[in-house]
């Protein structure tokens, strides 16, 4: 350890090699972020050509807007449902995939496949499958259960359908990580439990979940980000935020404010709030689970 070889001849060379990355980060991440923050303090008109300093009035307007507050509540609820639903479902599916002896790779491909589908394609396909009048899924659901599917008009139904689609879309991503984490658990632990006669469910929540907790925490954070930011195409193509704001997620609302109503200042303020909200949530998640995660041993 005494002698460390220097990877670079000079600091200048190191800086030169870092430059392309820094340029990309600055151009596409830091500059837009700062510009968004700056824009949130202005009122804009004519596609942002005409800017007028208004201070925090954009934020005040949002705080007092009932549409915005509704959108905020809907987004947080939606994130909660999607994060928990995705984790629970993928955990169960992953556990079954991990447990199965025969043909596990074909099951794995089947489980991961939805993730490989572009969100827009998935949204349009599911729109057909779940269409209240034409959907083949709707047909059988109504045939076999007393329910009627009318999510074009019913707010709660639209919310549920959107959440299910969002969960379905995110399962693959979670399953890849969970199966990998489960497969990393030494097989002898499973065998030892088999000899002791430990039940499978007990094994899952007493042994496997604690052992893959680092992966689960990572997935909670990634799913949170996903549910706030990456569900835009689903909302846009399936519900357009309706009916009457029931699925009007923050990310969708800010898009409309910016590009339909050309209110860049207001949309920027919404962006800032969304960013701060997700950042706070991630901070809480990481702090709350600190010390609980099992990192090897």
């Amino acid at each position, binding site marked *: 350890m005494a002698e460390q070889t220097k990877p670079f001849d000079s600091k200048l060379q190191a800086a030169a090699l870092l430059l392309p990355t820094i340029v990309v980060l600055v151009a596409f991440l830091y500059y837009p972020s700062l510009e968004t923050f700056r824009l949130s303090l202005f009122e804009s008109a004519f596609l942002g050509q005409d800017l007028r300093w208004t201070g925090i009035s954009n934020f005040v307007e949002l705080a007092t807007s009932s549409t915005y507050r509704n959108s905020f509540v809907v987004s947080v609820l939606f994130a909660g449902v999607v994060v928990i639903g995705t984790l629970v479902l993928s955990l169960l599916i992953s556990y079954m995939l991990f447990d199965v002896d025969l043909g596990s790779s074909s099951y794995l491909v089947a489980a991961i496949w939805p993730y490989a589908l572009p969100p827009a394609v998935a949204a349009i396909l599911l729109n057909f499958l779940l269409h209240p009048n034409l959907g083949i899924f709707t047909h059988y659901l109504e045939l076999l259960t007393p329910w009627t599917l009318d999510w074009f008009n019913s707010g709660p139904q639209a919310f549920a359908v959107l959440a299910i689609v969002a969960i379905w879309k995110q399962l693959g991503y979670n399953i890849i990580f969970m199966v990998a984490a489960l497969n990393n658990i030494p097989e002898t632990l499973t*065998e030892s439990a088999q000899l*002791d*006669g430990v039940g499978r469910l007990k094994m899952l929540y007493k042994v496997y979940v604690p052992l893959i907790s680092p992966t689960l925490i990572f997935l909670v954070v990634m799913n949170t980000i996903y549910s706030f930011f990456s569900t835009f195409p689903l909302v846009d193509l399936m519900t357009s935020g309706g009916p009457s704001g029931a699925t009007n997620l923050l990310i969708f609302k800010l898009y409309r404010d910016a590009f339909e109503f050309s209110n860049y200042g207001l949309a920027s303020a919404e962006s800032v709030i969304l960013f701060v909200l997700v950042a706070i949530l991630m901070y809480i998640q990481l702090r709350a689970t600190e010390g609980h995660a099992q990192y*090897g041993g």
Partner: protein
Amino acid sequence: MARIQLTDLEKQYDDVLAVKGIDLEAQDGEFLVLVGPSGCGKSTTLRMIAGLEDITSGTLRIDDEVVNDVPPKDRDIAMMFQNYALYPHMTAAENMKFGMKSVSDFSSDEIDQRVEEAAETLDIADLLDRKPKELSGGERQRVAIGRAIVREPEVFLLDEPLSNLDAKLRVQMRAELLRLHEELDSSTVYVTHDQTEAMTLGDRVAVLDAGELQQVAPPQELYDFPANRFVAEFIGEPAMNVFSVDIRERNGHYVADHAGFSISLPDGEGLDTASDSSVSMGVRPEDISLASNLPDDAETFAVETTVREPLGELLLLHCQLGDDEIHVKVEPRSEIQPGETIEVGFDEDRLHVFDARSGDALYHSTAPEPTKSEAVATE
């Protein structure tokens, strides 16, 4: 205590026959060691006994009951793994309790009491609140043993339990395992690739190679009367010297001819089969002595020393004998140097002859005990 019987046990993986028809029995309370090189099927055999591997064919009985299809948890066995298989997120005590808690017929007082007792026996009472990562290798080993014994199983299965420990600890744990086995009075099947472990621990040792059982015998018998060339060379360190010889009959007695020597063999069973055919002769390094240490009438021959390995307790010489290299153990402080020619001879009571092709033992210059007593009776 329990009796484990393996009858024609086989394990087939896709295109590999890993275990080929093993017949083996572990008696009540016996310490049986399965030993062999890696890939010989010893672990697979153990895992079939545990129920962690399906049995392709043959029968497995525990206490005369066929358990081929009995799930592992109902076989009343405890197994210890090479990596100990402790749950990293649980303390030592929780690790020891976890399995028992899953079996409903223990009250929690009973569990606590048993864990306490086991901790006492294993001298780990003050480590019970620690997690595995806070324990040393030896301590983890003890916790793993503790977890196995709290359930008081009929059968203990141990899969290379000592190979992750350093040499000194291994010797210590070996003694401890023996003491524990005496105390618990259960049947133990122990898998290892280390012949020293096998010799020191086993009441009987089963040697496996390429999925086949080569020999089962008490350690000393295995060493003195190997059933074939594989066992002869696997057991003992350094390995037995084996070289090709021709056996000829001369005046009613048999003589072994080699490029480097020609010696007469004590009469015994099997020499007539071996004569006039090419066979292998085996002599352990300690059964070759310098001529000066042999009786005057002993047959000796000259070999050239090529390498000198002082091992402290003895001196190991590599010598050229015709086209073969042989190992000879001599007194540690001998002044023999490489290049020197020395006069040596065999201990005529400790010679072995193997079939050149099948490797089966044809002749031991001293007959194994049972055969010997029989011979005495008929005379």
